[in-house]
């Protein structure tokens, strides 16, 4: 399938499948002691059912801000976000979020962590444990049900977070740099796993990352953001066969996409790095976290 026909196909799909998520001209600014910071500016994006979309951009470009707004944790300053025509005003039940930082509960075992959302929904104990066990298995952690997060490695903890989000079967999975804390090899192998799961569950995923290889490896489309204020610089469809595995990393086609995104990002990253050096303590701090 060539690029043109693939894009046509995409377009057709977008027409038939109504978008599950629509981000419509969303902006967000913060008022800080040093003045107004424009974090996100006029972003529009729509994601259809079953799609895997990545958002990539340099540190501090507003990715997490956008993520929080879609998740309903932060109101937008302008614009609207819709889940299947319903404008969101707070956390929406159809959305599951996986956070950038470790967000497992250290006082709960793996299985109790994963079963937590079901506990809130009042699902009966035996049922929720069974379900949790299923998802623990899915992320490859069988045998660790009774371990506490402190007894796991960072990668394993992130998998617990993912299982905890998958367990209540959200229609839309939002992930904010879920693998940022991991080393490259582990990250790519976990990426494989997420790819498999997505295919199995027919899930819609919006992944935030700053890892180019990861974005290319996993996505149907990649949205590249500019440095602050975060704008939509380009949306790039990734026309690679599926299933994709980490082997593909050394193929030429893969290299082509990486180079393409890298060219876009270098400009922004360079801009960001220079600017970071000039920002106040607070901003720099945030950017580094």
């Amino acid at each position, binding site marked *: 399938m060539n690029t043109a026909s693939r894009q046509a196909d995409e377009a057709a799909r977008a027409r038939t499948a109504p978008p599950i998520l629509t981000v419509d001209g969303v902006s967000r600014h913060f008022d800080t002691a040093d003045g107004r910071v424009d974090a996100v500016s006029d972003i529009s994006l729509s994601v259809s059912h079953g799609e895997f979309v990545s958002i990539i951009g340099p540190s501090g470009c507003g990715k997490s801000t956008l993520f929080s707004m879609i*998740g309903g*944790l932060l109101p937008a300053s302008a614009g609207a976000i819709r889940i299947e025509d319903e404008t969101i005003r707070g956390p929406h039940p159809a959305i599951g979020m996986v956070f950038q930082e470790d967000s497992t509960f*250290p006082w709960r075992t793996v299985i109790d962590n994963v079963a937590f959302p079901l506990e809130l929904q009042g699902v009966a104990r035996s049922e929720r444990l069974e379900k949790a066990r299923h998802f623990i298995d899915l992320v490859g952690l069988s045998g660790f049900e009774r371990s506490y997060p402190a007894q796991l490695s960072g990668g394993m903890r992130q998998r617990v977070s993912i299982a905890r989000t998958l367990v209540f079967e959200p229609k839309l999975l939002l992930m904010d740099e879920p693998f940022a804390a991991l080393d490259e090899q582990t990250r790519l192998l976990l990426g494989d796993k997420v790819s498999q799961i997505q295919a199995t569950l027919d899930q819609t995923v919006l992944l935030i990352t700053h890892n180019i290889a990861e974005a290319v490896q996993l996505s149907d489309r990649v949205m590249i953001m500019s440095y602050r204020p975060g704008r939509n610089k380009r949306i790039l469809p990734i026309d690679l066969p599926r299933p994709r595995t980490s082997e593909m990393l050394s193929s030429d086609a893969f290299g082509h996409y990486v180079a393409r995104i890298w060219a876009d990002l270098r400009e922004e990253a360079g801009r960001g790095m220079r600017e970071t050096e000039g920002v106040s303590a607070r901003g720099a701090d945030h950017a580094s976290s």
Partner: protein
Amino acid sequence: MPRPDATRLRFGPELGGLAVLVLLLAIVELLVRSALLNPFLVPQPSAVLLAFGRIVAEENVLHRFLVTGSEAGTAAVLVACIGVPLGALLHRAHLLRAAIGSWIAAVAAAPIVLAYPLFLVMFGRSASTIIVISVLSGLPPVILMTTDSLQSVRPALIDVGKSLRMNAWSLFWKIMFPAALPGIFSGLRIGFIFALINVVGVEFLINFGGLGPLINELAERYDLPGTYAAIGFVVLVSIVVFLILEALEKWLRPGKR
């Protein structure tokens, strides 16, 4: 960074510490026997050891131990049951915190026990005086640490709760509180220490209650080994409280490393 490993030594250090302690006591014993240390000021450790049995048999120490222990227990329970909710309240009520947060820190610094005559005249020479003073001294660290640790619950954990659309109540009980428990426990540990110091201290000062007056009485009788043995029982109370707290923490914080 790989660190040099010390886990090889299973119980070596503990036994070594105990050995050093025993050795020190043996040296004291020798010094006292050879009168290099004034035997009228320092009793022989062996005599103290024997005195343990004697004061248990003659001075009703077990009962006194229970009296002091129950005072300490009551004070500890009150410190926990008042301090933690108050800390939580202070965390929620920003206005109140701004108003009296620094006052609580100030009370923590005030030597409340010095006002014991005042409490004595207000509450009489009774267990309530002892408990009130202890609770007042133990509260501030608990309140402050509770507020602090609720304040510094990792935002990511709270975000999880919000994204799962938890209401304020269950957010508090299922996330904020367990996440803050480690900090709350450090506060409790300090608070209990202060409360305990005050329980026995005030007993000793006002000569009322369990072990405190016994120390006075034995000192008054010039029963040095007995006095030291009684002090040993006070240390035992500290150890018991310390161990109970540790067990409690293990139970409440299963994931603790």
